[in-house]
């Protein structure tokens, strides 16, 4: 049906290809990474494989993929809907603790329950399949997102940021005090929950292709690339598809002008709450991926305000609203945070003989902060900006007269830029003027001006 109606379009084939291009490319990248570590690197000589493993260990790739899930989730809230969320770590924490509750033998749990779990059947505690836990955590987090979103609906900008930040802190404090809430141990308190089940491989493990449990061993880490890569792929797919649909366009509308959007009939309450819920859903999945795939333990000390800002930084650095930009931002920053700074230190040490290997990672806060400030000063729209965001971020928010008052030098530069941006129009005017004067008919300006005159 669709094919017949669109058969007349000559670029139909290209459009289909364009739609398929990114999934194919993405699968190729993930498979390449997998085979790189699985078969290519071990077969290469050491001088070739050692630097790759030093700069990009498998564990770091897994971390990058996990952070990409988080960044994609925050991108829905901040990038699409324009709701600044500084408490995103709350969802990461709740997702992690859901994994702790459903995939481990925590503290005083007396309920033994197994559901498609890869661990042996007589292990005590609750053990539920990784994928099911992902869904449960996502739904729980979406509900929490609605709870957090509801009171902040009428707030804007700064206040919204502050209230979400407050919620983030409250939830972290809840988990910190969770050892004794009205006399009950809910989530293990300060030490948290440890030895969470690793991801199982199901049929692949049974056939002997993959290890049965993806622990933090060399083989397990390599297979985790596929699992986490699949999760990131799903998140990218959802992000891209929602963005095209009615909901995504409603988000973009409220991001750009809330008042105008509501006047055009966008149901603000529903759309904003959905943004929180979808973002939180991703956050929950990220939390499970982190708890089960990366750390195999959760404790409240990991869920601090710094993590919220780190995710936000990924979104801002990559380019708010652009899925690919955000993914790359997440890769860059998490790599820098986990392994990159150390490696850069090692490389500089090789030249200078200093001890930057240990020092540079200790300055990660300073470096991240500087990066954020410099980004805001010189490239506000991010590394790979979305077209609309770019226009929005480069446009002064105040009217011309106001910005004239705000800083006359900047305003002057702005006026200059405005004048120069319309150079084509200037040329036309000059050309028509020349044509009117009847001189310079041979120049291009003159001829275009003459033609213009004939048209009118």
């Amino acid at each position, binding site marked *: 049906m669709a094919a017949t109606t669109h058969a007349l379009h000559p670029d139909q084939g290209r459009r289909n290809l364009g739609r398929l291009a990114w999934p194919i490319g993405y699968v190729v990248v993930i498979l390449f990474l997998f085979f790189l570590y699985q078969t290519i690197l071990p077969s290469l000589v050491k001088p070739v494989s050692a630097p790759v493993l030093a700069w990009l260990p498998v564990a770091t790739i897994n971390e990058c993929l996990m952070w990409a899930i988080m960044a994609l989730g925050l991108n829905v809230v901040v990038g699409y809907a324009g709701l*600044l969320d*500084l408490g995103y770590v709350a969802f990461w924490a709740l997702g992690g603790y859901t994994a702790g509750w459903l995939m481990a033998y925590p503290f005083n749990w007396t309920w033994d329950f197994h559901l498609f779990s890869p661990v042996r059947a007589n292990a005590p505690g609750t053990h539920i399949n990784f994928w099911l836990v992902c869904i449960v955590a996502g739904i729980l987090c979406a509900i929490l997102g609605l709870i957090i979103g509801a*009171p*902040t609906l*009428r*707030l*804007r*900008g*700064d*206040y919204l*940021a*502050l*209230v979400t*930040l*407050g*919620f983030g*802190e*409250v939830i972290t*404090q*809840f988990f*910190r*005090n969770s050892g004794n809430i009205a006399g009950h141990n809910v989530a293990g308190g300060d030490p948290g929950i440890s030895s969470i089940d690793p991801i199982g491989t199901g049929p692949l493990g049974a056939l002997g292709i993959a290890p049965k449990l993806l622990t933090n061993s060399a083989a397990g880490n390599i297979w985790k690339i596929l699992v986490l890569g699949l999760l990131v792929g799903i998140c990218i797919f959802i992000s891209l598809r929602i963005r095209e649909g009615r909901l995504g366009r409603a988000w973009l509308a409220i991001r750009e002008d809330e*008042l105008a959007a509501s006047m055009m009939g966008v149901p603000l309450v529903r759309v904003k709450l959905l943004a929180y819920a979808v973002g939180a859903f991703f956050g929950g999945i990220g939390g499970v991926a982190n708890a089960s795939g990366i750390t195999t333990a959760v404790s409240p000390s990991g869920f601090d*305000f*710094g993590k919220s*800002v780190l995710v*936000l930084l990924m979104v*801002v650095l990559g380019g708010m609203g652009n899925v690919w930009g955000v993914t790359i931002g997440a890769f860059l920053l998490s790599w820098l945070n986990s392994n990159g700074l150390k490696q850069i230190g090692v490389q500089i040490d090789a030249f200078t003989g200093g001890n930057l290997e240990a020092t540079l990672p*200790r*300055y*990660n*806060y*300073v*470096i*991240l*902060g*500087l*990066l*954020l*400030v410099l*980004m*805001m*000063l010189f490239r*506000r729209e991010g590394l790979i900006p979305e077209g609309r965001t770019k226009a*929005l*971020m480069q*446009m*002064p*928010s*105040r009217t011309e*007269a*106001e*910005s*004239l*008052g*705000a*800083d*006359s030098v*900047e*305003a002057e530069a702005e006026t200059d830029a405005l004048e120069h941006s319309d150079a084509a129009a200037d040329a036309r005017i000059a050309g028509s003027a020349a044509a009117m004067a009847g001189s310079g008919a041979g120049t291009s300006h003159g001829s275009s001006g003459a033609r213009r005159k004939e048209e009118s």
Partner: protein
Amino acid sequence: MATASLVVGGTQRKAKVRLGPLVERVLGYVILGLILIWFVANIFADPDRFLGSLLVGLQNGLLYALVALGYTMVYGIVELINFAHGDLFMLTTIIAAGLMVGLLGVGQLSAISILALLLALVVCMAAGGFINMSAEFLAYRRLRSAPKLAPLMTAVGISFIFRGIAQQDYINGSAQKNWPISWGGPQVEGVYIYKLVMVLAVTVPLLLLMTWIVARTKMGKAMRAVAQDQDGARLMGINVNGTISFVFGLGGALAGAAGVLYFLCQTQTYYDTGTQLGLIAFTAAVLGGIGNLTGAVVGGLAIGVVQALNEGAVYGLGSNWSQSVVFIILIILMVFKPEGIFGRPTTEKV
């Protein structure tokens, strides 16, 4: 068919009964009533403990007020939540610690150490003002006409830089550092009276000075003018950049004073103090109505007292939950009265 349904929808739409505002108002009063009942219950349960908590609350509340003033002034003039303000405060606690204990060797507060206190106040206020002014000069100034998200993110970045600097081992390290300062003198319900006297003796004159600057001096007039309309102020010949810079300096100086007092009260330094106390102080500023100087002081005292009662009085959740209590106050406030106690509701212009 589409047009038909459109017409039907257009004519048959019922006028909505707006229950929202009424329910909201009733709920707001119920919450206010519950807080009052909590106060009274605490008084009757154990008056002595209530008094002790009240004194602690007064002492902390004045410090919060000093920090909150920095937030509220900056917000009032450039509409920026200066996330780095709390961390600036934290840096000044570290400077105060290094100066008073490390350099001057103050161990016990006595008559002579008042001189050290004065010196620390001057140094920390100058340092706080200088750091804040340089942050404004280097970063915020260039972003004044940018969308609001940009300066906010810059402030977060600067707060990260401050925290990262404080975390270095040669500054403070990433653990809490306790300093050997002992307090003597009479106590009331576990509260050192001298502490309270010191806080009052420093804070009250500073607050009066602030009021005087804003209400009586030429600079204060310029500040109010710039807050109202930057363009208008510029046309009247006011140096807008200079005034904004001065406000940042003033806020930083107040944070510096608060840093010295906080260090002397708690006798410890920690790189994360800024985030926690900064958020509390910001809540105080919002509670009083952001941009309103009296509001910041009242809000600071209110938050200080509520927090102290929660920690010390009979019916309280304890210090484990004090952050949560403060933030829940903030969230409730945001739902019911976003403009704060003294603030005026703002409407968005198209």
